[in-house]
């Protein structure tokens, strides 16, 4: 049944692409027409360090939102907070209007919000296929009582396996299907992590640097897949340092720095925002390094770092 959902939806939903974000003001914490996630005053401190201090955040349904920002800006921590893997010091947030405060991480996932991990978490001594199958939801065979009776879950299992195989092929992991996941290379783990999250068939998928370490050619083909997810009506939120990817697929970009949201907007707009360029992109990130004057580049990096340091001094 789950497998059907995917194949049918591809055909039906070219409509959701229509979500128009042009009307949304490009200010931090901008309200969205149809927000799937709404968060308020979320803070998380580690000792003296405020890792996350988000005043207001909304994620639009049915689009691809990119979350970018310098290293240590608090992106992963925000993911952890939203998905119940970490507990904030304060704040409220909700998914589809339902509060997620104090909701256990697995329940968050069950409500349709699934995340991947920046440092991959593969199940090393399970095969790649088993890793995938674990992702499937609503499995009858996962209940202790029906697990004993194979006829109750056989059919479902086969459907899931077919779907898993499809995804694996797409992620170029099909040849590794029966290998232990622990024997995958760094990039393959990233791929598996993402493919497994897709097995959950989530409404909102949160990817933490999904393409770091993925080969460019493969990345390109995967981006198509991510777009198709959106076209199926799903919401995608991802963290990425790869600007090509951000530019190519995101509909909306949120910029974080030092725990705060400092800018929002369409990719084009954000990438031209001088503040973002200064703090994050660097003026020459599109230039060929061979042609570039090193001194200039270094000065620029220095400038960014100083800006960060200043920001830290006055929190």
């Amino acid at each position, binding site marked *: 049944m789950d497998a059907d959902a995917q194949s049918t939806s591809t055909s039906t939903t070219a409509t959701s692409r229509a979500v128009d974000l042009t009307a949304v003001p490009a200010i931090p914490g901008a309200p969205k027409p149809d927000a799937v996630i709404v968060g308020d005053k979320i803070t998380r401190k580690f000792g003296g360090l405020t890792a996350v201090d988000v005043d207001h955040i909304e994620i639009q349904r049915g689009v691809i939102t990119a979350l970018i920002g310098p290293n240590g800006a608090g992106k992963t921590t925000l993911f952890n907070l939203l998905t119940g893997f970490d507990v904030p010091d304060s704040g409220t947030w909700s998914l589809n209007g339902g509060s997620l405060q104090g909701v256990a*991480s*697995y329940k968050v996932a069950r409500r349709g919000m699934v995340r991947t*991990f920046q440092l991959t978490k593969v199940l090393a001594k399970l095969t790649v296929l088993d890793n995938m199958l674990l992702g499937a939801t609503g499995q009858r065979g*996962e*209940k202790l009582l029906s697990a004993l009776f*194979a006829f109750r879950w056989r059919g479902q299992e086969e459907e899931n396996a077919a779907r898993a195989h499809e995804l694996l092929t797409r992620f170029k992991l099909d040849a590794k*299907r029966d290998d232990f996941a622990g024997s995958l290379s760094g990039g393959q783990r990233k791929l598996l992590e993402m493919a497994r999250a897709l097995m959950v068939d989530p409404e909102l998928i949160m990817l933490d640097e999904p393409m770091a370490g993925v080969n460019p050619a493969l990345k390109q083909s995967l981006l198509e897949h991510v777009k198709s997810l959106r076209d199926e009506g799903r919401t995608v939120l991802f963290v990425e340092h790869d600007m090509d990817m951000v530019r190519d697929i995101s509909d909306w970009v949120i910029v974080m720095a030092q725990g705060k949201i400092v800018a929002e907007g369409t990719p084009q707009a954000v990438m031209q925002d001088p503040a973002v360029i200064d703090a994050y992109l660097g003026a020459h990130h599109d230039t060929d390094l061979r042609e570039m004057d090193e001194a200039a580049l270094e000065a620029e990096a220095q400038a960014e770092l100083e800006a960060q340091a200043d920001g830290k001094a006055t929190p």
Partner: protein
Amino acid sequence: MTTTPQQRTAPAVQAARPHPQAITSLVLGVAGLTLTAGITSPFAWWKGQQALAAIKDAPDQYRGRALAQIGRVLGILGTVLLVVWLVLGFATDVLPVDVGQVFKTALNQALGPNAIVYALAAIGLNIHFGYTGLLNFGQAGFMAVGAYGLAVSVVILETPFWLGIVAALVAPVVLALVLGFPTLRLRADYLAIATIATAEILRLAFGSVELKDAFGGSNGLTGYASAYQDLNPYGGPLDLGFVEFSQRDLWSVTVGWTLVGLSLLLVWGLMRSPWGRVLRSIREDEDAVRSLGKNVFAYKMQALILGGVFGGLAGLFLALKQASVVPADYSTNITFFAYTALLIGGAARVLGPLAGAVIFWFLIAGLGSFFGQATSGPDPLMPTFIMDDTQASLVRFIVTGLGLMLLMIFRPQGIFGDRREIAIDGR
């Protein structure tokens, strides 16, 4: 300057079929142990070895690793038996040791009630540790509550026998719940200490003078097992030549191996299911499983309870076959030995606990008997300045310790385990 990357040949997955030699090996192996008195066993060993190699080389084409493995193990066992039988003939004349007796003692224990206790306890540990990764070092505690569940109900509370059995099965569930709620969020090594501590607390409490009225102090409790013996349908002992059981043991062995068989069936059924997959995933990385929407805690609790019930069952069976419940029987050592049995067989393998328990007792009893004989009598095989009869009873533990070490060194995956799995995790 350029070479084209060559395409990987991905073989059709459906083509995988059991390797024919695996089946041959299994058949020969079984035959070796039953019909042919060991003659076919070396062939079973050989075929099994071949099949394993073939399957390893082409894992895509062949299935049946388990079959080949079993065939091979049976083959090895049968070959050993064969050699022993051959050696017996003249050795008994040469050595002042009755090798036949040694062998018989060993086999008696390997197939007797003690092995059943360990097999059941190890089945429980297999669920805890092998599949779910819960490092439960308190299996002795589960066994104790199982045994005391029966004894206390029948002796102290004077309930009928069958209610005692029910109590013995409910008690481990309660213990699992009480223990699980606080400790299941602990990291594996902390959990190990917490469970070991709980088991010791239970043992000490059961044996304490202060609670003597409820648990009988360190004398323990007796006088509950007659109902069990009354059910004994056997009229006399059984002597098959290579093993023999008294009338009592025969009944215990029947009940016990039936329980073990049913338990293994249950474990097999569960572990091939998606439920089992979730458990194995939890063993690898809890957070990943959580992120996929599984209630990790609930699964761990189910595993703890299920494994605990098997532990309780082991305790219950021990209590029944031994007809006494004594706190000293439930010391940490028994947990260690159950782990030993599990790992000899291979963790996370359905048949691991069974094979392990049988081999463990075979060694312990065989060595004990051999050295016992070698040091006793007017003209012992071992000169007394090397080993006297007291020391002889230690040698089996020394050898067991050594054996366990060697096993882990040369075959860390146990008899049924998968070498590749072990190789996966570098630290």
